[in-house]
């Protein structure tokens, strides 16, 4: 093949261009730290990177949701602990008050403390986290319990947040669950003096009836109703307890001991359920964190440049470029004309 001046020149030019292109590409990788600068550099890698970034992002989002859920549930747990302490204290006071050894003055003092506990329960029930009432369902701008009528003003909305793909967890507890219990069947408690108490569910409230069997427990037809009252939440229950102590109605105080136990049980159960939710959130957090670390490693492996490799490749290319320039300089400046004098 004939080799002409243009061919040599063109070939050198192209070689230098190719090397310069490679140097600029490597410099780009070096400055961005990325192996993939645009989709066509590595389509599959780019798709994977997009996938990993999406997963990392949604993990971060789920973690934020979990933090929010933990804040709510932790706060609620604290409130419910106070509620159970108040109920325990109320039970102690009820037992003291019903022992019959108290004079009216000390009974009045106990009744006063019960009334304080009731007010404490109301303020606990109307607790706010930031600007949000925690026990009123979706009606977060409304006090769950009216301080005067003690009626429940919230609704049954459960506020769910997503903590994983397709997994929702409620972050609130309803006032109707935290400050009320529900009887599934009527309950009868006999007292040793021939009297007995019947607890039954009437709508949203618990109905308490105290009967005297008049000596013949086997024959209900001659029983007389001594007293009946109802309450639809713990605050109303404490109201009754207070008034019973004030009126020295030991029978009524006795009749309220069992509801106090049930109330305490309800709150304790609820709190352990919240505890379970919280520990599930903790598990989920560590799962998400581990998966984020995994994804970040994968992402880095997919799109990050191996700096050592890039640098050595760069110096290799630069050396080649140097050699090429040197040889071109010599080659292009010489021709037969130099020797024909």
């Amino acid at each position: 093949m004939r080799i002409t001046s243009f061919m040599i020149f063109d070939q050198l030019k192209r070689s230098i261009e190719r090397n310069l292109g490679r140097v600029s590409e490597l410099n780009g990788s070096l400055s961005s730290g990325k192996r993939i600068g645009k989709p066509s550099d590595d389509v599959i890698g780019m798709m994977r990177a997009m996938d990993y970034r999406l997963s990392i992002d949604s993990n971060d989002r789920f973690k934020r949701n979990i933090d929010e859920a933990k804040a709510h549930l932790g706060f609620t747990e604290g409130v419910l602990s106070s509620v159970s302490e108040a109920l325990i204290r109320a039970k102690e006071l009820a037992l003291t008050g019903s022992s019959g050894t108290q004079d009216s003055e000390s009974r009045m003092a106990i009744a006063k403390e019960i009334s304080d506990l009731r007010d404490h329960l109301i303020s606990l029930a109307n607790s706010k986290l930031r600007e949000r009432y925690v026990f009123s369902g979706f009606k977060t701008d409304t006090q769950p319990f009216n301080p005067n009528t003690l009626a429940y003003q919230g609704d049954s909305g459960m506020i769910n947040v997503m903590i994983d793909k397709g997994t929702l967890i409620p972050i609130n507890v309803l006032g109707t669950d935290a400050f009320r219990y529900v009887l599934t069947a009527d309950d009868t408690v006999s007292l040793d003096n021939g009297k007995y108490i019947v607890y039954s569910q009437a709508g949203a409230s618990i109905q308490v009836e105290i009967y005297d069997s008049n000596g013949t427990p086997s024959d209900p037809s001659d029983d007389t109703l001594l007293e009946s009252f109802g309450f639809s939440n713990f605050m109303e229950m404490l109201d009754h307890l207070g008034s019973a102590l004030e009126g020295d109605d030991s029978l009524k105080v006795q009749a309220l001991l069992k509801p106090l136990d049930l109330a305490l049980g309800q709150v304790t159960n609820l709190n352990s359920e919240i505890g379970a939710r919280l520990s599930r959130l903790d598990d989920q957090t560590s799962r998400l964190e581990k998966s984020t670390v995994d994804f970040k490693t994968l992402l880095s492996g997919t799109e990050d440049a191996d700096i050592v490799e890039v640098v050595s490749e760069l110096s290799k290319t630069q050396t080649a470029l140097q050699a090429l320039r040197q040889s071109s300089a010599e080659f292009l400046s010489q021709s037969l004309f130099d020797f024909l004098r």
Partner: protein
Amino acid sequence: MSLLGLFNIGKSAIFASQTALSVTGHNIANVNTPGYSRKEVILDIAIPVSIGRNFLGRGVSVSDIRRNYDRFIQSQLLIQSQNYGRSLAMERVLSQIEQVFNETDDLGIETGLRDFFGAWNDVVTNPESIPQRTVLLEKARSLVNTIKGMESRITDTIRHINEETNDTVKRINTIASDVARLNDSIVRIEAGQGREKATDLRDERDRLLGELSNLVDISTIEDKNGAVTVIVGMRNLVSGGVTNPLSTRRNENGDLDLYIDNVNVTTGIKSGTLGGLLSVRDYIESNPLHDLRKLAASLNKEVNILHRQGYGLDASTGNDFFNLLSLSTGDFSSGADITATIVDPSTLTLDEYVITFDATNYYVRNKETGALVASGAYSSGSPIEFDGIRVVVTGAVTTQDRFTVSPLTGAISNLGVAIIDPKGIAAASSETGLPGDNTNALRVFQLSEDVLSDLGGTTFSGYLRETVSRIGTMSGAASDSLRFEDNLLQEMKNRREAVSGVSLDEEAMNLVRFQRAFEAGARIIKVTDELLQTVLEL
């Protein structure tokens, strides 16, 4: 034979060497001229005379100045230039489009989508919070801006392609008229000679044809007079000394079509810069632009369907989150009119439709699946309903008439966030005024994971990923093919160079060779002169 004959031999030697030296000089002068073919002097023995029983030479004559040229290589070079021109145009445009979808930096639509749904999630955790709602509106607006920015970068690219098409056509016409002019000159010079004498003009014409084939796919035929006919898309662009210029016209889609002699030759143009531009334009319109619009339309549709069902903090309901999708219609009729409205967004398919007519009936076809979605007897003004769309055509129609209905064309230009007051974001799904109700916001948030039939059974991000991967693959393939075609073109050029190129070393040797020959010729004359002197002094 006389002594004067010796003079003539000397003269022929000097003349031949001088010619050879000027050809060498011409070669050296044109060492860097593109398209130049090395010339060579062909020397012949001058016809001898008979002297008695012997023949005596009469020196040398220049029989031809030959052009070193290989017709086969030249024609292959033309074809390769066309492929190269096409690849170059495609690579150039696709690498621009690829940058529009470049998600390696955190500024693209992928990030926009993530932030948008992330903001919905923050509303889920704090449905009553105005700051979170304001952030959501902000993120939605920024997503809309990102999408609009991407669309305008793509449409700008298409506009540039159209402008470049026009420029290329102008360049083609200029070259074509130069070729026609050269055709005339070559025919005139070579008339009656029977050989390719107009060597430099032919070089120039070959160079122009090379440039032309870089721009558009041509085929060339040389007639016996030396004129070249250049054919583009089955029509003569150049025929002898006549040019039929290429022209552009806008077609019904707003794109440029190419015409020669009032005949549409667009489909015949497959390679060269022009072919590359046409095909990459069609690709962009039917792929990245279409995909981006579909994504935006689908986001709009799905979010709105859910948002309409929800309630805002201000008890508002039935409102759209994004501006309602609007339909664009294309009217390719002689006298009829069309209006199209969306009656049921939930059954909308986001495909484009074509309405055609025969003598009595109308036919509505889905442009993407080809399925017939509605048909019936045509009556002016009566509504036609299909896939959530109501179309009313009024006026007389002919069988040539055609209408198109597209929810995509304006999907991005009309995109906007319709909700202004953050309280209007419908996070609640039941009753009015429940600040803690996040059920609807949760549903919108879950959209980000939903598989959508409009998007071919993928999620928003999945669809985006597919789009990006298609563009990346296409652009990667274009740059690979450019490298391949470039190497091939280089190989062809080298082969042409090997035959036609000028080597300075070779010319240096020729220079010395012919200089010596010239000197020797001159010496013959000098010797002859001395001989004559000797004779005259007798």
